[in-house]
């Protein structure tokens, strides 16, 4: 074979290979061939979960380094991170372990931290934060499930008897109650039906009330009257309160009577006199007392009147002369 041709082919082949390497180098985003030497930071956790050397360290989602190792130190688990040199980590940046996917791979997530905070230097310690992973969430779901189960058990025991079993269950009690009182219940229901029938057919007061339009009108009228009465009553009370006000202020007869001490004394005197008078009347003292209590005056008066009667009868028989005589007799 021609040597030149051979050289051309080898040259082309070689260029093809180099070009391919270059194309792949450009196409793949991660262009670092050798690991850049960075600085290390340490974050302590109570549990580093599945985090292992080589896992990514991301700040706000951007890859800034890798986990170089995990180790136990005292009662904590420490993660040693290697951060690329050009990225500065703020001292108040918080590290947490986050899940990269459902397959269980994790990465270490750093927050940006505040602007004014200092930057951590080589060997600096990061603040860490516990995050709940799938296991914690599942454990919580499990405990919720337990609670629901307990609740359902309580409910089912209180409703026990749905399937006929369980003494003391709500349904069995209801069942028993209905069984024992079935006669009463049916009687009650019968009565209720009779009552509702009557109401429906317009019998009785309620029935008429429900069915008769007139009853409504009467009711409205009654209410109207009650209203009027109430307004009058209110007027009356107004008047009464006026009167009371007048009395209170001492005006008028009643006011004077209640609030004037002179009147009170006079009344007292009067009643005393009256009592004395009635006592005298009772005790046969004085003319009136005797008139009331002594029968002799009455008997005398009676005989006088009888005598007069007889005299008048005699006069009637004598005519006018007698009348003159009587008159004279009376005068003399």
């Amino acid at each position, binding site marked *: 074979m021609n040597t030149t041709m051979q050289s051309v082919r080898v040259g082309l*082949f070689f260029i093809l*290979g180099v070009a391919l390497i270059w194309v792949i180098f450009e196409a793949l*985003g991660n262009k*670092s061939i050798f690991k850049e030497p960075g600085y290390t930071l340490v974050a302590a956790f109570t549990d580093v979960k599945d985090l292992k050397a080589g896992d990514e360290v991301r700040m706000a989602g951007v890859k800034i380094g890798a986990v170089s190792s995990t180790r136990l130190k005292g009662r904590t688990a420490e993660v040693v991170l290697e951060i690329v040199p050009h990225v500065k980590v703020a001292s108040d940046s918080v590290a947490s372990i986050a899940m990269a996917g459902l397959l269980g791979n994790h990465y270490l997530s750093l927050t940006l931290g505040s602007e004014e905070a200092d930057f951590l230097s080589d060997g600096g310690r990061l603040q860490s934060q516990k995050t709940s992973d799938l296991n914690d969430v599942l454990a919580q779901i499990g405990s919720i499930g337990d609670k629901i189960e307990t609740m359902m058990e309580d409910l089912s025991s209180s409703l026990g008897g749905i399937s006929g079993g369980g003494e003391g269950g709500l349904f069995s009690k209801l069942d028993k109650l209905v069984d024992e009182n079935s006669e009463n219940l049916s009687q009650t229901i019968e009565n209720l039906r009779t009552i509702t029938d009557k109401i429906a057919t317009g019998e009785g007061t309620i029935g008429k009330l429900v069915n008769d339009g007139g009853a409504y009108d009467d009711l409205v009228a009654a209410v109207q009257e009650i209203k009027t009465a109430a307004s009058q009553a209110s007027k009356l009370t107004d008047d009464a309160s006026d009167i009371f006000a007048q009395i209170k202020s001492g005006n008028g007869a009643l006011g004077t009577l209640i609030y004037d001490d002179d009147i009170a004394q006079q009344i007292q005197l009067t009643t005393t006199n009256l009592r004395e008078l009635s006592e005298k009347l009772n005790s046969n003292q004085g003319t009136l007392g005797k008139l009331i209590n002594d029968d002799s005056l009455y008997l005398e008066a009676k005989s006088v009147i009888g005598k007069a009667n007889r005299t008048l009868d005699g006069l009637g028989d004598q005519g006018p002369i007698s009348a003159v005589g009587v008159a004279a007799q009376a005068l003399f």
Partner: protein
Amino acid sequence: MKQITRALEAIGDTIILMVRSFGYLGSIPRQWHRLIEQCYLIGYTTFPIVSILSFFIGSVLALQTGYSLQGFGAESFIGAVVGLSMARELGPVMVAILVAGRVGSAITAELASMKVYQEVDALKTMNIPPERILVLPRLLAILIMMPVLTIIGNVIGWFGGAVIAQYVPFIGTDMDAYFQSLRASVAFKDIFDGLVKAEVFGFCVILIACNIGLKTKGGPREIGHSVTRAVVVSLILILVLDYFVTKALL
């Protein structure tokens, strides 16, 4: 004991051969045509078989991964699996095995027959060190061609996987998603590690082939034995080195 001595002797011989060969590095401009010729034989003529093999390796990888992952609904990871497997492991190893079988055996056969038919002795008589004109161009050629073969193998393997991922009904991942997944998972470091591995494998294969060829003693029958030995040793060494180189590069 004798076996161990022989193994150690072979290792020592190989290292001495390598050191001597690189001692003549200054002579390369004068034997440029030899280097080109070896590049042609080692690289260019191996390209078709590397392409075919890589394509089907990638395809089978995608098929197996897709079949295994369909139970999890994780077909979108095929790109990542095929991409990383080809770049980090299968690409370099398969190319190295092909080189051992196709090129290594040819070199051993050629050098063994030259040795058996005393051509190597004739060169020595003419004060031409066989390491300079027989070994050095081949070693340089494999160093130049191995990355090229590997990267071509990788790309063709990825493409084979993409074809399978798209056109096999039960996988049904389109090529965009496949390459997205591949790009997301494969870093250039993975490719680079693969190329470093391929370089180490290729270099060892050629060095062993040259050494065994030049150490052949006896008649034509020994040529066959040497070829068999060269291929077997190369294959074992590729797989043993694979572990250590991978571990070193992680």
